[in-house]
C-alpha cells in the first residue's frame, strides 16, 4: 500500500514586501503579494520527495478565504495529487486553536500515514498549529524537522533541529512532523503542472463536511484576542568600545550601575 501524506499549507502575505502604516502601526496589505508559507513549501517538498521515492500519495489542505485557492493550484503544479480547501464563513476569525480544530476535524475524515505541517507561518510566527493538530488527533509528533529517512515499513528516522544542535529520533506512522523551509530546496512548479492546475478539481469543504464541535471554530472558538498592535520602538545605536574582555566587563558593570540596574 502506498504511503498517504497530507500536507497542511497556508497562504500568507509575503512579509519581505510588507510595510507598516506609520500612523496606525498596522500592516499595509494592499498590493502585497500572497505566497505559500515558506516552511509549508518545505513540507510539501518533503512530501513530494517521498512521492518520487516511494510513490506516496500527496494531499494538500488549507483553510482560508477563496483567494487561498492560488496556493492549492501552486501545490498541484509542483506535483500534489489532491487538494482540499476548507472555506466557510464559520471558519473566519480563527486563532491558532480554532484553526487546529478545523484542520483536525478535516483530517479525521481522511486516511494518512504522515501529516506534514510547516514549522510556523511568516505572518503569525506562532509554530502552534502543527503541534495542536497532533494533540487533537492523539498522534506522535516531531517538530523542527531537518531531514527524514524511511525504513519502507512504518518507521521514520528524523533529524530535528534544537537550539543547541540537533537530535535524531525515531517515530512510527501515523505521525505528524513540522518542517523547516531550510530542510530542503523546494522544487519549481513544472510547466505542464501549471497548464493543468486550473482545470483540476479543488475540493471545497465547509463546516458540515468536517468532524468537529462547531463551537470550537472561527472567532467563537478562539480564546486569543488581539488587545493592541504596535510598532516596536527604535533603539538608539549604542556605543562601541574596542577593548579587551576584562575591560569590557568593567565598562558594562559601570554602565549598569549608572542606570541603577545593578
Amino acid at each position: 500500500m502506498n504511503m498517504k501524506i497530507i500536507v497542511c499549507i497556508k497562504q500568507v502575505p509575503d512579509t519581505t514586501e510588507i510595510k507598516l502604516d506609520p500612523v496606525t502601526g498596522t500592516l499595509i496589505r494592499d498590493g502585497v503579494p500572497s505566497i505559500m508559507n515558506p516552511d509549508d513549501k518545505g513540507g510539501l517538498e518533503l512530501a513530494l520527495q517521498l512521492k518520487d521515492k516511494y510513490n506516496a500519495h500527496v494531499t494538500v489542505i488549507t483553510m482560508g478565504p477563496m483567494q487561498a485557492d492560488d496556493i492549492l493550484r501552486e501545490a498541484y503544479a509542483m506535483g500534489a495529487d489532491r487538494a482540499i480547501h476548507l472555506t466557510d464563513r464559520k471558519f473566519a476569525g480563527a486563532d491558532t486553536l480554532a484553526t487546529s480544530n478545523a484542520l483536525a476535524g478535516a483530517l479525521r475524515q481522511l486516511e494518512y500515514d504522515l501529516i506534514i505541517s510547516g514549522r510556523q507561518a511568516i505572518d503569525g510566527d506562532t509554530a502552534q498549529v502543527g503541534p495542536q493538530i497532533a494533540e487533537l488527533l492523539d498522534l506522535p509528533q516531531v517538530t523542527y524537522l531537518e531531514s527524514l529517512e524511511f525504513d519502507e515499513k512504518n518507521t521514520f528516522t528524523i533529524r530535528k533541529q534544537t537550539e543547541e544542535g540537533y537530535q535524531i529520533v525515531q517515530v512510527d506512522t501515523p505521525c505528524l512532523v513540522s518542517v523547516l523551509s531550510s530542510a530542503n530546496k523546494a522544487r519549481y512548479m513544472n510547466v505542464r503542472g501549471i497548464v493543468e492546475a486550473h482545470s483540476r478539481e479543488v475540493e471545497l469543504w465547509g463546516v458540515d463536511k468536517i468532524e468537529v464541535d462547531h463551537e470550537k471554530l472561527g472567532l467563537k472558538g478562539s480564546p486569543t484576542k488581539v488587545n493592541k498592535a504596535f510598532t516596536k520602538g527604535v533603539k538608539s545605536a549604542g556605543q562601541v568600545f574596542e577593548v579587551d574582555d576584562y575591560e569590557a566587563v568593567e565598562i558594562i558593570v559601570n554602565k549598569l550601575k549608572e542606570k541603577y540596574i545593578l
Partner: protein
Amino acid sequence: MSDSKTYIMDFSLSKQDELFLQMIREFAEKEVKPLAAEVDEQERFPVETVEKMSKIGIMGIPVPVIYGGAGGSNQLYSMAVEELSRACATTGVIVSAHTSLCIAPILENGTEEQKQKYLPKLAAGEWIGAFGLTEPNAGTDASSQQTVAVEDGDNYILNGTKIFITNAEYAHVYIIFAMTDKSKGTKGITAFIVEKGTPGFSVGKKEKKLGIRGSATCELIFENCVIPKCNLLGKVGGGFGVAMKTLDGGRIGIAAQALGIAQGAMDETVKYTKERKQFGRSIAAFQNTQFQLADMETRVQASRWLVRVAAYKKDKKLPYSVDAAMAKLYCAETAMDVTTKAVQLHGGYGYTREYPIERMMRDAKITEIYEGTSEVQRMVISAALLK
C-alpha cells in the same frame, strides 16, 4: 482590412499566466541571472541551465502532452523567452531556437512517425534542436541555397555548408534546407531532419560574436551526408514554405527575447539611477533622466503588447505573420534603443563589465539581424499593406 488590425481587447493575464510568471521569474532570478556574466565572459553554453529547464518542462512548452510536452500556449512560451532573456539573452535564444526553429517545424510539418520519434525527446530537453537555413551566400536571400540534396534510392545525399547556426555544437536534431532541384528556385528547396552523428555531417568552426556569446553559433558541414527519405520534412520542393512559416513563429520568440533584454536593461537602469549620486542628489532626480526613463518604459510596454498580440493570434490559429514581423521589428529596435540609452545613463560604469548593462547592449544588436533583419520585417509589413 489587414489581419494586423484585428483588435484584442482583453488585456488581463489569466490565472495560468500569473502562475507561470511566478515560476519563470523565480527561476530566471535564481538559476539564470547568477550565471549570465560568466556565460558571456567565457563564451560558455550553459549546459546546467538547460538541464534545469528540461526538468521543469521549459524546453517543450508548446508541445502537446501526447508528444511529451507541457501542452502550453505560445503566449506562455513567449513569456518564458522574455523572462529568461531579461536575465540572460543567451539562455533566451537557446530556448527560442530549440522551440521555434526545431520543435515547431516538426510539429507543423512532420509525419506522425517523425513527431513520435523526435518531439518527446526534444520536449524533455534530452535532445536540443537547431535550424540550418543560412549559408555564406544565402542570408536574407534564402533562395540562393548552395547546399544540394541528390536523390539516391531510399536516401538523399547532402553536400554543402550552413553558417551562424544557434545551438549547433549541442544540438541532436537539425532542420536543414537544401536544393533538390536548382532549376525551380525557391520551389526546389526541401527540408530535412538531420540527426547528430549522421556520417558525413560535422559541426565546423565556432563564431566569436559581439553578444549572446554563450549560444554556440557554429558552421555545419555536409560531405556526402546520407539522409534517409523518411527524414524528409514536408514535401519535396516544399522547404521554402517550411522555412518561411517557421521563421514567422521564430520571430515571436526573438521579439520576446528582445523585449526581455530591454526589460532587463530597464530594471538595472531604474535601480542605478536611484542609487547613483551626482551634484548632491540621485541622478533619477534630474528631469533628463526622468524623461529618458519614461520614453524607454513606454517603448518597452508597447513592445510587450505587440508580442502578446502576435502570440495570441498564433494560439488562436489566426494569420499572424505581419503581427510577428511588427513585434520583431519594434522589439528589436526597442532593445537596441533602450540598452544604448541605459548605458548612457550608467555613464562610465555602464561601459565596464562591472555592470550587466554593456552586455545587454551587445546582446540586443543581434535581435535586429537574425531570423530576418529589421529590413526584412519592413518588407513583410509593407508587402501586406501594398498587396
